[in-house]
């Protein structure tokens, strides 16, 4: 594979990859929002 690294890291012999941290009670509802979402829901 030909790796064309981002101009920011070209020829630096390292590659910096930022990853997102997603929070939620399920993959479907996960988001970047780290605030506690607490809800007491009487059915």
């Amino acid at each position, binding site marked *: 594979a030909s*790796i064309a690294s981002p101009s920011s890291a070209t020829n630096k012999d390292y590659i910096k990859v930022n990853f997102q941290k997603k929070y939620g009670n399920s993959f479907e*509802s*996960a988001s970047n929002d780290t605030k506690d979402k607490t809800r007491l829901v009487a059915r």
Partner: protein
Amino acid sequence: DNDYELVELTNQNSFYSVELDIGTPPQKVTVLVDTGSSDLWVTGSNNPYCSTKKKDTIDSSFKQVNKDNSASVVESVFTEISYDTTIVTSEATATLDSTASTSQTIDCTAYGTFDTSKSSTFESNKTEFSITYGDSTFASGTWGRDQLSLNDLNITGLSFAVANETNSTVGVLGIGLPGLESTYSGISLSSAQKSYTYNNFPMVLKNSGAIKSTAYSLFANSSDSKHGTILFGAVDHGKYAGDLYTIPIINTLEHRGYKDPIQFQVTLQGVGTSKGDKEENLTTLTTTKIPVLLDSGTTISYMPAELVQMLADQVGATYSPVYGYYIMDCIQEMEQESSVIFDFGGFYLSNWLSDFQLVTDSRSNICILGIAPQSDPTIILGDNFLANTYVVYDLDNMEISMAHANSSDDGEYVDIIDGSVPSALKAPGYSSTWSTYESIVSGGNMFSTASNSSTSYSVSMSHSATSSSSFKGQKIQTSTSTFSNSKSSSTISSTRISSPTSSSSTRKEN
């Protein structure tokens, strides 16, 4: 009036994701970053598990509270998503009890799918792909190649699979060892199929010359941060405190025919606790050597059931059959609290106990201990450990270096990894690695070794709240452990900043 209320657990899950652009024209897909597996795969747009209607998806985030229970225990049913791959051994047991059932449909719009028919550059290599994970999710499909970029890094040429059938909501970017690739150690390989390894993501970076060593540093960042970083080919000395110590990756599957390690397991030589700042409050739970998997694809941590019981007895947690986890009082901010201390071979990493708590929002101040029992005689240290630990995975030398993470943004001091990890020290216990499974014996003294050396562990932990706004409520824990033995003496001082807002420092998966 109908005896129960629905309580949504606080928002504590976390998993690490990156966004890929695949095909021509590019289609965006988000995948989970996973050191516990080694294949890249994305969900195909024709996956029958994808629900056409949103209401089909069953969201297990609501919990039932049994009101007539004096403890008002919040019943929670959630599945721990652990992406360490199931390996072809007779011992492979589902390390996690999963409530996800494959009959559930999933919402595939959340993280995107890849439609091969809409890419003019997709090439299938007509090889079957199949993988199963420790939480009973699976993916199967076909291997192929296409235009591919991650953030703005062009990684075209990297083989990836398109899963036309999967019950996992999100695809996976496995960055583990080549031996863990499903083409080599996958459980689906029929005897006829010849197993082989291929160049996965870290190896593609190395072979293309983008990095000098097949090694990377994982900085998971503080527990409530929005992003972390993986530095491929380098180490950032600004992201850890104290010294980086190096230990070997061990092979727990040699008896299964794997002559080299295929997963990131190292030897844990002792587990203990400390209470507050006092040195005399150090307790050794065990000094039995136990294999530990350092897995970014697992959210909480897992230990053999008997060890979790020892820890629970020590910290006042009790097992709740309702949860299937241990529960305990939530540690209040600034309360003098315990730490869990890991001895990796003469160097110690300690985490606040609150970092291992999952906060429910039941009004009875109940917290789940985010160290869960498992039947495997091994330990998985997941995100709630990695959030406080800087880990360098060196795939070329089959070593792992670790230190306390420093998330106080002290700037970047990047060194290229070329042959070995710069500034890392070989751990004093580097060579005394795990060799065979033993029953876990309680007690011992991990804080000083036996007769032949005067290694002693002195802990001075000062928990002090800092008032500055950016670190409001932060605690500074300085643990200094001093080693002196016949050959050399080295003083390790590691300062760790950990947020007491434990509610966001631990996570659980659906």
